[in-house]
């Protein structure tokens, strides 16, 4: 019995890299979204260049499930190289569409799936003579066929094509024709629609579909970043490139054409962070975007900026490590290396957005925080957030918002005060005052150094002076906690002894998993941490539960390590749930892991809640 589902299935396109399928696939996803049905698209691309396999997966979910589900209900197998594996990966009773121009050798197809042979190449060859056109329109013909098979609103698809080629009107017509070719063939040869289908709903609202890296780049623009220094690395490059794109659009003086920003593609990550720190020291808002290997290289400078108290913003789009690891696969494996980056006793501020909207918000906030706290601020994204389009809340900006440049003394301030001490804790919040170079002819200049220094920035190896400085840096973390985004807590339907802590891209899968578990009778309170150092609420949350699952995407349980280390709790009460194969974590995985654990933990019935 073929799968039957409305607005709830996973479709996957197996493509050849460089075949021009990306925009057609996105068109398809967006058309479903326009019908008011939430979509969660994901790129699955091995670390390779032209000619090798890539996949594009869309989870269609009226309920709004945005996490990866796992499994494929409908496979569009356009890559001969991966054909066999793709067919095997289809869920029982699922569907397969393939290019039937050439017949497949017998025995390759499964008997339980519905096979749709579309002679895509033949249709293309019959209608187009230009080889490039044949390739490109094949993708559109395919979308046309799918639209008929899955019952998409054709008007929406056509409208999207019109929007996509706005200004290039000559391209609209032939694309629409290709779309019709696919639709008409499908209608003539298959029973349309299939058991899987899309039906107009009203579940998208005002949400937008945007990549995390693009949103973070916009955050940097809105947050007032003027200097960007970076070195290309997957999956962070599109963040810096996005910043360049938005700056070209928004930051050129209309009259003179001059740029109100500077972007340097540095020679390496060490130089990138050096430039960011130099710019931050000199009063500009500056950032870099990188990934794990870049974080490794930047370590010495992180320690410097921490100790010399210089603002800097670092976007780390995490990928699978160690070493070069899996460059195009997602993980959350830089938590420890960022939190404690560099030698000696260091501790940094981390922001942990869950999606593109938060990447925008935290991206902008990071600059205020870095200036306010005079320290590096890391925004930790991952490939799953950064390089996939995610349905999320629209980006918002309050025009009344003013940049918080932190404690910076002007020449007038310097004239007023008796004595300037760069590292003096004047206000008791452990944040000292700074001056930008060139501010005043004879007051406020100081020497910035990575060697230990006294309150007036003078070199000092005096033990007491050193300890005093280090203690103040620790106290600064307490101030930071008050400024950072608070964790988000969500209670189970009924009191429970179990909690789960997670962060970032785990969010949608975790939410879904909690619902699956609730249906199985396992209530779970949730806490999503959004920043490090941890807010007091995190400790309270753990205290409120007998066992807390710490769900994250790395082998060693880095979030759990940080919790144990920073909050000082009995590690036994923190149960690791770890997913680190490089694919996005799924609700199925989390629910199975936690469900299995709960069964073996043998926790006594809840007494606390009853008393």
């Amino acid at each position, binding site marked *: 019995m073929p799968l039957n589902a409305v607005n709830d299935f996973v479709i996957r396109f197996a493509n050849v890299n460089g075949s021009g399928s990306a925009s057609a696939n996105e068109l398809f996803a967006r058309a479903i979204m*326009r019908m008011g049905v939430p979509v969660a698209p994901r790129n699955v691309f091995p670390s390779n260049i032209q000619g090798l396999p890539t996949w594009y997966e869309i989870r269609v979910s009226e309920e709004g499930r945005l996490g990866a589900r796992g499994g494929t209900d409908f496979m569009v197998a356009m890559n001969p190289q991966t054909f066999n594996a793709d067919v095997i990966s289809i869920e029982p009773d699922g569907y397969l569409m393939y290019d039937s121009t050439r017949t497949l050798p017998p025995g390759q197809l499964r008997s339980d799936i519905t096979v749709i042979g579309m002679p895509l190449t033949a249709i293309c060859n019959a209608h187009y003579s230009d080889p490039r056109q044949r390739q490109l329109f094949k993708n559109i013909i395919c979308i046309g066929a799918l639209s008929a098979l899955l019952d998409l609103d054709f008007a929406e698809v056509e409208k999207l094509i019109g929007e996509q080629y706005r200004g290039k009107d000559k391209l609209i017509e032939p694309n629409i024709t290709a779309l019709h070719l696919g639709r008409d063939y499908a209608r003539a040869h298959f029973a349309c629609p299939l058991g899987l289908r899309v039906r107009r709903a009203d579940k998208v609202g*005002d*949400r*937008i579909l*945007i990549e995390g890296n693009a949103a973070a780049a916009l955050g940097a*623009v*809105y947050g*007032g970043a*003027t*200097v960007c*220094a970076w070195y290309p690395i997957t999956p962070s490059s599109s963040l810096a490139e996005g910043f360049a794109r938005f700056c070209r659009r*928004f*930051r050129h003086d209309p009259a003179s*054409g*001059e*740029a*109100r*920003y*500077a*972007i*340097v593609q*540095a*020679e390496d990550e*060490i*130089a990138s962070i*050096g*430039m*960011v*720190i*130099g*710019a931050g*020291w*000199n*009063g*500009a808002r*500056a950032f870099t975007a990188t990934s794990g290997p870049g974080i490794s290289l930047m370590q010495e*400078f992180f320690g*410097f900026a921490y100790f010399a108290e210089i603002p800097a913003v670092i976007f780390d789009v995490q990928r699978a490590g160690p070493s070069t690891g899996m460059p195009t696969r997602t993980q959350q494996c830089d938590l420890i290396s960022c939190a404690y980056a560099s030698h000696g006793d260091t501790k940094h501020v981390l922001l942990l957005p869950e999606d593109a909207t938060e990447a925008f918000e935290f991206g902008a906030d990071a600059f205020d925080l870095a200036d306010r706290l005079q320290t590096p601020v890391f925004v930790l994204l991952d490939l799953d957030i950064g390089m996939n389009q995610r349905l999320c809340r*629209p*980006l*918002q*900006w309050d025009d009344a918002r*003013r*940049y918080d440049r932190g404690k910076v003394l002007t020449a007038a301030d310097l004239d007023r005060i008796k004595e300037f001490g760069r590292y003096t804790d004047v206000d008791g919040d452990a944040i000292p005052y700074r*001056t930008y*170079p*060139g*501010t*005043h*002819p*004879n007051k406020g*200049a*100081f*020497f*910035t*150094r*990575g060697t230990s220094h006294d309150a007036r920035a003078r*070199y*000092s190896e*005096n033990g007491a002076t050193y300890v005093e400085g280090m203690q103040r840096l620790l106290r600064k973390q307490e101030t930071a906690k008050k400024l950072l985004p608070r964790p988000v807590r969500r209670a189970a339907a009924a009191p429970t002894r179990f909690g789960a802590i997670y962060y970032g891209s785990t969010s949608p899968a975790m939410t879904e998993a909690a619902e699956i578990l609730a249906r199985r009778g396992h209530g779970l309170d949730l806490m999503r941490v959004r920043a490090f150092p941890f807010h007091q609420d995190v400790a309270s949350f753990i205290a409120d539960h007998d066992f807390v699952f710490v769900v994250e995407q790395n082998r060693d349980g880095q979030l759990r390590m940080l919790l144990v280390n920073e909050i000082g709790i009995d590690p036994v009460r923190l149960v690791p749930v770890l997913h680190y194969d490089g694919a996005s974590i799924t609700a199925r995985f989390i629910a199975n892991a936690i469900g299995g654990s709960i069964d073996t933990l043998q926790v006594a019935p809840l007494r606390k809640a009853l008393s």
Partner: protein
Amino acid sequence: MTYLAKPKFHHPSLPKNALGYTRRDYEASTSTLCAGCGHDSISAAIIEACFELSIEPHRVAKISGIGCSSKTPDYFLGASHGFNSVHGRMPSVLTGANLANRDLIYLGVSGDGDSASIGFGQFAHAMRRGVNMTYIVENNGVYGLTKGQFSATADRGSKSKKGAVNTDSAIDLVAMALQLGATFVARSFSGDKKQLVPLIKAAIEHRGSAFIDVISPCIAFNNHPGSTKSLDYVRAHNEAVNRLDIMTGREPIFVDYAPGEVVSVRQHDGSVLSLRKLNDDYDPTDRLAAMNFLQRHAAQGQIVTGLLYVAAEAADLHDHCNTVAVPLNRLGEAELCPGSAALDAINAGLR
């Protein structure tokens, strides 16, 4: 505690420059380097150059790496901000600082270990980017601060204090700077203040990457027979190509040497470099010839000093980036933030 504040005692009869500053205004804390270290002479030359140029001391940002040489910014221009960065990374920090505020004068101080070894990449890229700065390498052929290891500028065959012979060939930072596109390239000697001070002045006035390699003998670890960076060796092998006078555009320009002996190069800001030729065949505006000249003399064991190359109309990194004239660190929300309406339009395009 090695910080030694210098007493601020102003003698009323001290000569003043155009802005009314005395030399003392360009000094800072007392040096803690070895007595007689070449680096201290360079600090003195920097003080002299800034005094003579009537620079407002606080308009200078002095940035260094790590090493004895990189400690020196503590010993001059006490009224300006200093930045003692990490080993070999002065150029990137300076580049970032320069991008943030194009209005200051950037002075980068580095050692040969700092620039030719760990920081070789950053040195190269700062040169090719045309960062507007004066980049001074205090070149002693050794690692001073870590006590006498060979640096990458030590000549092949030269000897360490303990008698070890260097078997690696040397990196010539001047040749590199020429090759990498620096628009002002010079070499001097810490013991030749007459040559060094005008070179520093000219480098400061130059817009673009100005590089000066200053041979600066390390008294403690590299001033023995067998070293090619010792005082005696450099004095004996110094071949000066020119002497420099610099006149800023604000002053009347005059040339008091007979034509033929003097080359004048007009700079971006209107200042004029007038070069008294010591070498008849030397043309400091010909990059290729400069490279040739340098290599030819190096082969003869000569250390060529003077202004080796200068591009008259150089562009700097800000020109390449087309940045606004207002320093980026001064821009506010109005200039930087596209506002909610633009964001609404972006949102609309993503539905």
